[in-house]
C-alpha cells in the first residue's frame, strides 16, 4: 500500500507534490469510479438470482440462500439460522411457512417437526454466482439467434464496406481521371447526410429492393458511409506511385496492383477502419429498429431493448444479456485500445 502511494505521489521531476497534483489525482480517481463502477455493478448484478435482485438495500456481492436436500422431501429445503427461542444457534431447514410461524426440521433429525417464530430465524446465505442467468439465455431466450444475427450483420457489412471503400479510395488516390473532383465532392456531400435524416426514403428503397425485415436491409445501407473512403484515401496517397509504375512495367494488371500491392500496404488504415466498422455495426440501433420488425431477425441491441419492456421483472436475464452484448466490444477494446483511439481521433468518430 505504501509502495503504491509512493509510486503515485512521486512526480517525474522527483519534486514534492503540489496541491494541483493532489487535485488531479483526486479528479482522476473520481473519474475511475464514475466510469467503472456502473459496469462493475452491472456485472456483479448479473450474477444475482432474481430473489437477490429484489433485495433492498442491495448487497455488493451476489448471495444465495443455502438449501439442503433431505430424504423424504422432493424439493431442496431453504436453511435458516435460529436467533431466538429454545433452538437458538441451530441451523434448521424450513418445510413451510404458516402465517407468523414456520415449520422446520433439524437436518440431523429430519423426523421431528419444529415450530419456530418467523422473527427468530435468519436465512443462511453464502456468496454464490447465479450462473443460471447465463445458461438460461441459451435455452429460454433465443440468445444464440440474436447473437448470430448481430454477428452476421457486423461481419458482412464490415467486409462489404472494406472492399467497396478501398476500391473507391484506390481510384481516388492513384488515378488521374476527369470527374475526380466531382466524385470527391459527392463523397464529402454524403458526409452531410446522416442516416437519421433520410429514414423515410431509405425505408422505401429498402422495401422496394425486398430487403425489409431481412438482415440485408441493415447490411447494405450500412456500407454506404463516406468515412472509410476518406480514411483510406488519405493513407493511400502516402504510398509512392513509383511502386505502381514498377508493377506496371512487370505487366501486372490494375486489379492485381490493387489487391497485391495497395491493399497489403494500406493494412494499418484498413485495420483501423475494420475496428470502427465492427463497432458501428455491432452497436447500431435506430436503422435496425426500423427495418427488423420480427423478433427472429432482431439483433442483440433490439432484443435487449424489447426485453426491457416485456420482462420488466426479469432483470436477471436482462442483465446477463447486457453483459454478453458488451463483452465482444470490451474484448476488442482490451486488445486493440491503441488502434481504436487513434482511429477515432483521426476520423472524427463517425
Amino acid at each position: 500500500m505504501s509502495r503504491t502511494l509512493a509510486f503515485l505521489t512521486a512526480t517525474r521531476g522527483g519534486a514534492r507534490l503540489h496541491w494541483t497534483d493532489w487535485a488531479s489525482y483526486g479528479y482522476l480517481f473520481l473519474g475511475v469510479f464514475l466510469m467503472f463502477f456502473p459496469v462493475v455493478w452491472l456485472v456483479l448484478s448479473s450474477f444475482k438470482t432474481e430473489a437477490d435482485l429484489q433485495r433492498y438495500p442491495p448487497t455488493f456481492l451476489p448471495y444465495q440462500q443455502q438449501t439442503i436436500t433431505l430424504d423424504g422431501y422432493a424439493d431442496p429445503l431453504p436453511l435458516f439460522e435460529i436467533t431466538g427461542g429454545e433452538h437458538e444457534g441451530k441451523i434448521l431447514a424450513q418445510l413451510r411457512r404458516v402465517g407468523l410461524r414456520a415449520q422446520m426440521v433439524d437436518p440431523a433429525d429430519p423426523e421431528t417437526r419444529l415450530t419456530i417464530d418467523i422473527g427468530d430465524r435468519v436465512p443462511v446465505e453464502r456468496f454464490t454466482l447465479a450462473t443460471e442467468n447465463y445458461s438460461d439465455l441459451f435455452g429460454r431466450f433465443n440468445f444464440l439467434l440474436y447473437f448470430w444475427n448481430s454477428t452476421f450483420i457486423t461481419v458482412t457489412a464490415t467486409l462489404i464496406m472494406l472492399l467497396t471503400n478501398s476500391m473507391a479510395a484506390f481510384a481516388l488516390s492513384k488515378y488521374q481521371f476527369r470527374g475526380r473532383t466531382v466524385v470527391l465532392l459527392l463523397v464529402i456531400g454524403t458526409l452531410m447526410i446522416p442516416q437519421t435524416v433520410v429514414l423515410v426514403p431509405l425505408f422505401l428503397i429498402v422495401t422496394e429492393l425486398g430487403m425489409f425485415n431481412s438482415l440485408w436491409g441493415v447490411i447494405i445501407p450500412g456500407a454506404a458511409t463516406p468515412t472509410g473512403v476518406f480514411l483510406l484515401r488519405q493513407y493511400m496517397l502516402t504510398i509512392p506511385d513509383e511502386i505502381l509504375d514498377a508493377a506496371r512495367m512487370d505487366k501486372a494488371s490494375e486489379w492485381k496492383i490493387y489487391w497485391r500491392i495497395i491493399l497489403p500496404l494500406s493494412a494499418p488504415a484498413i485495420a483501423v477502419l475494420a475496428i470502427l466498422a465492427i463497432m458501428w455495426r455491432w452497436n447500431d440501433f435506430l436503422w435496425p429498429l426500423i427495418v427488423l420488425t420480427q423478433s427472429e431477425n432482431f439483433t442483440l441491441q433490439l432484443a435487449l431493448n424489447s426485453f426491457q419492456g416485456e420482462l420488466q421483472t426479469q432483470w436477471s436475464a436482462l442483465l446477463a444479456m447486457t453483459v454478453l452484448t458488451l463483452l465482444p466490444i470490451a474484448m476488442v477494446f482490451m486488445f486493440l485500445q491503441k488502434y481504436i483511439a487513434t482511429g477515432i481521433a483521426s476520423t472524427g468518430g463517425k
Partner: protein
Amino acid sequence: MTETTGQGASAPAPTHGRDSGASRDGLVLRVVSPLMRLVEIPMLGLQRLLGINRLAWVFLLPNLVLFGLFAFLPVILNIAYATTGGDNVLLADRPYVGARNFVTLTDCASYLDPNSCREDKFWRAVWNTTWFVTLQVGIMVGFSLLTAIVLNREIRARGFFRAVFFFPVLLSPVVVALIWKWILQREGVLNAFLDWTGIGGYNWLVDADWAFGWSVFLSVWAHMGFYTLILLAGLQAIPRDVYEAATMDRASPWRVFRRITLPLLSPTMLVVLVLALIKGVQTFDEVYAFTGGGPGTATTFIIQYIYEEGFAGAPRLFGLAAAASLMVAGVLVVLTLVQLWLNRRSADG
C-alpha cells in the same frame, strides 16, 4: 483453381509462436486469392477495353452505386415525401400536398409555447432537443477539457486513465441505457446509497425534470471520452517551449492557461464543439432505450419524433416525418459546412 500461397498456408496450422500469425495470413490469402483471381479476369478485359485511367470508374462503381442508392436518392425522395400526404409508402399512391406538411409543422400561435402549436409534439421535441443539446454540449465539452488538461499533466499511468475515460464511447447505446436504468431504478443502488446517507432516495425516471437531467448525464458519460481524446491531442500539439518561456517569465498557472493554452487550443475546441453539436442534434438511441421519451414527452427529441411519426405510430405519417427530417437536415448541413470550413482553416494555418 488451386494455388500455392507459400508454405505457411499449405502446412498444418502451427498452434503457437510467431508462425501462427503467418499461417492466419496464409489462410486469409488461401480464401481470398482464388476470389481475387476470379475477379481479375473480367477486370483485365475491362482494362484492355477502357484503358488504365478510365478503369478508375470501375473501381468507383460499387461505392458510387451504394452512395447513390442509399445516400443521394434518399435526399431527393425525402423532398418528394415531404410534399405529399397520406400514409402510403409508395410515392405513386401519395397525393401531392405542396407545402402543407411544413405548414402543419410550423403552425403555431407562439413558437415558445408548444401547446399553442398544431403539431405540439414536434415543438416539444424541438425545444427538448434545443435544451438537451445546449446542456449536453456545454457540460460535455467543459468536462472533456478539464479531463484533457488533467491527463496532459505529468501524471503516472496516463494510458490507463485515458483508457478509463474513453471506454464508455465503445459501449452500445442500449447497454449504456440499461446500465444506468439499473442503477437509477426505484430500488437501485443509487437510492440505496442515498437512503443510507439519510438524504433519501427518489424515483428519478418518473419525474420529468430528473429524467431529462439524467439523460443529459448519461449522454455526457457515454461520449465525453471521445472529445477528451481529441482535446488531449490538441493540447499535446502545443509546443513545449511556449510554456517554458512562460515559466521563465513567472507567469501564474491561471495566466498561462488563459493566455497560452486556451488561445492555442481554440481551433481544436471549435472542431469539438461543432462535432458535438452535430451528434447532439441526432441524439436518439441511448435516450430512447433509457426513458422511451418519457415521462410524457419530457425526453422526446427530434429524431424520436421522426421515428414515431413515420414508423412507430398508426397511421404512418411519412410526409410529416420527411418534412421534419428536412428541417433537421438543414441544421446539420449548416453545421457540417462550418466543420469542414474549420477543418480546412486549421489544416492551412
